[in-house]
């Protein structure tokens, strides 16, 4: 444990790079959770350098589960080329689609099946639905930066190993106002958490629930 702490300390000092914490609050100052936060270099030409320096970027799978006839999580964020896994944890078939003009897809996913052959090469947002379960809705944010995350219950997201190249912070959530979604926030790296306050209220995230009771299909395989 001591060894680990010493390592981190040495690492931070030696690289001059340190972990940075961001906290997103709504207009009232309450923590806003589930919001995608990503950083892009202020000079976007440095994006490729950023990718080049990214040594430890083992491609991480983004798993979008269909559980209880909901997309879970509602909002997923990943960087381009990262594989995306759709995992049907329900005992029922889903027909997942996107009709995004460039990134449209649709496939049926039977109970317990996974589909992992989908990835996207470009930054984009994809709205997904289930053709069988109208109420199901999920969103996928594909970013072209390695620094992205989703605010936890405290509205916080932490990025480590940030090079000091000058970033701007962006937020995304389907229910965020366009103002907030389009905002580009510059910041300076400090040891203190950086506070981002939403300009406009966030609308409620859909509950992905059928408005009518739908018990009769439960007994069928």
């Amino acid at each position: 444990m001591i060894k680990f702490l010493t390592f981190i300390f040495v690492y931070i000092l030696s690289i001059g790079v340190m972990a940075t914490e961001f906290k997103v609050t709504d207009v009232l100052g309450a923590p806003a959770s589930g919001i995608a936060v990503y950083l892009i270099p202020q000079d976007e030409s440095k994006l490729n350098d950023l990718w080049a320096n990214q040594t430890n970027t083992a491609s991480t799978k983004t798993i979008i589960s269909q559980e209880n006839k909901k997309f879970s999580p509602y909002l997923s964020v990943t960087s381009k080329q990262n594989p995306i896994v759709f995992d049907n944890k329900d005992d029922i078939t889903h027909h997942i689609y996107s009709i995004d003009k460039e990134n449209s897809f649709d496939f049926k996913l039977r109970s317990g099946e996974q589909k992992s052959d989908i990835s996207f090469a470009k930054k984009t947002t994809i709205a997904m639905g289930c053709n069988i379960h109208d109420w199901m809705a999920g969103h996928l944010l594909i970013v072209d930066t390695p620094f992205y995350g989703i605010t936890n219950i405290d509205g916080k997201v932490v990025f480590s190993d940030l090079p000091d190249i000058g970033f701007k912070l962006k937020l995304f959530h389907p229910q965020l106002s366009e103002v907030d979604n389009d905002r580009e926030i510059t910041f300076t790296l400090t040891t203190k958490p950086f506070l981002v306050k939403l300009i406009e209220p966030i609308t409620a995230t859909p509950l992905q629930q059928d408005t009518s009771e739908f018990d009769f299909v439960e007994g069928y395989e």
Partner: protein
Amino acid sequence: MKLQESSLKNRIFFFFILLLIAVQGVSFYTTQYSNERLEEQQLNSQLSQAETLLKNELTKRSYYLTAFAETAAKDYGLKQVLLEDTRSLLIALNNHRKRIDADIAIAINREGLILAELLVKDPNQEIKRVTPGENINSDFSNPEWLSGESQNVYYSEAGNIFQLVLAPITSGDLLIGHIAFGYSLNDKLASELANLTGFSVGFGAVEKNKWQWLALKDISSEHILEEHQLNDFSPLKAKSGDAFIFTNHTLGQLNHQQIIATTYQLRSSLIAAIKQDSVQLLLMILITLVISLLGAYSIASGVTKPLRRLVKLSKNIAKGNYDSDIYVGSTKELNQLADQFGDMQSAIQSREKEITQQAFLDNLTQLPNRNQFYRDMHDLDQPFILCQINIRRLAQINDTLGHDVGDEVLQELAKRLKILNKPLYHTSGNGFLVRFDNHLKKHINDAISLISKVIEPNFLYQNIALHLQVNIGVTFNDDWPQANQLLKEVDSAMQLAKRNNQLYQLYDRQIDLNTLDRLQLVNRLKQAIEKGEFTLFYQPKLNLKNNSIEEVEALVRWQHPVNGLITPDAFIHIAEQTGQMKALSLWVINEAIDQYFYWKSQGLNLKIAVNISPENLLDDDFCERLIEKLCTEEQLYKSISFEITEDAFVDHNSRAVDNISMLRAEGIYLSIDDYGTGYSSLAQLRNLSVQELKIDRCFIQKLIQQKVDQLIVSSTIQLSHQLGLQVVAEGVEDKVTLQWLKQQGCEKAQGYYISRPLPADEFSHWLEHSQYSSPSNNKTQKEKHEETSTIAADNLLS
């Protein structure tokens, strides 16, 4: 029956007529009114039903449109082609449109750009031609509807108004566009709705109260809403009383226009229906009225028929026919009435009998009374003698022995007269009639003796023997006079018998005439004074000392217009009894005064003696008026003197004596008239301060033949002179008597030898030509004497 009295039957009938007309009128009016109300209500309710149907239909359409549009929006195929090429999208859109036969279909992307649009041309035709809309790739005109929620709106394009439903298309929860389907508000729709509701249906757009027709189906029979009328007709302006009844239903809003559906019906069709109803109703009512009136007439007759029977019955009763049969009908009440009539009839019958008995019988003696006498006289055609028998002094019996005894006496007399066995009547309190039929005038004595015979025996009443005395008046039916005339006759005769103390008196017309004259005089006397029917006659008093006429006695005469000249004997008594003596005496005095002045103006100075009644002397007012008249500056009392009969003093009436003394004190000259016939007392002569005695004519007229008269007259003259009175002899009818009186020292003489009483003008004429001198013409007296002596003698003889 009077004309203005309407019969009960007519009244009942007319009452029914009025009632029926009123009832039917009210019923017609209310039925008509309620019919109209009902029709209107029905129509209104139909209208509201139609409106409800219309609303439902349009709501249903919108619901199905909405449901369909939402379903189509979720269609994955559509979602997949939404962002593909337009052609693919149009085909997919048309597939959906066909399913509900929509007139318009639109696909709009997230940014409000119209991706695809389909319009049905000529939507009224069976085979439809679908064309792409012109607005593809241009912005949707109403971006406010693109909210992500379903919208049910009215949409205008290419001159049509559509009922349009927009539904959002989502990918997951991401809104990627809208899809819309709609129906056009066209004549076909109006027609469908009109068929459904049974009313004319139209759609209109209203902007600023201006109605613009969108579509119309007019199903009214007259199709009055022709094309050119559409502009004039506006459901907005319609009000009650218009040719239409209608309801408007606002469907929705389009920009600034209101989309309104209207349902209407021609009122005329409604009114026509009501009119037809009215005619039928009126006909029914008229028929009912006629039948009711017939019924009313029969009821009226039925009610009044028994009444008419009762009227007839009571007429019979009025006529005295009590045997009428009473039958009025089967009605209980009327039969009760009829029974009452029957009871009344018999009650009247018995009461009439009783009354008849009372009316024709005397209560006391139970003999037939005067009424019965009249009745019996009706059918009598044989000669008879009628006797009225009255008990004498019945009043005295009543007064002394009491009315009971009087009644007993009457009953006894009745009993006795019954023995005669002749028709007998008790006609008055104290009067019985006996009729001797078939008796003639010559049988009167027999009849009287029959009556006397039954009355003769004494009537023994409680040991008092009463001798019944009667007076009988008798008459006979000479020339069939009236019954009441006969009664009058026997009564007059009886009265005369009573006055004359006779047993009986036969009626004579003369009896009546006397009574009648007297009556007429009484009635006429008052008028006679007013009308100046009295005149004064003058008889001279000759002064025996100087053989001159210085004084006359005024004697009143009644110039009766019918009976001629009436002497005072006939009317003075009546005037006294009827209280008219004062007026008469005053008239005489005034007349005498006038005559005195007249003569004086003619140069004739004659004193006038006026007779006044003893009654006048009892009247203070009369005496005062005498004094007023005479004791004036003209000193008439020296010229007008008065003659009073002895009766004035007989009653020793102090008032008369006082008044005489008063007159005398005023210097009025008084003489006592008719001296020696009455009950005059010498004592009175002494007390009375009269100046003259007039010896009654009965002592003078046969003076020369009767020594006794000479004795009386000469001694009276002596006595009078002794008492200082002058003496006048009345009734001097010859020269010898005049000479004798002159010798005896009598001062004045009066009588036919000198002159009978003459009217004033004749008197002055007589005096002028007489042998006697008068105060004014003393100088010519002697010549005249020669001329007129023969004439005077002639007068005396005639």
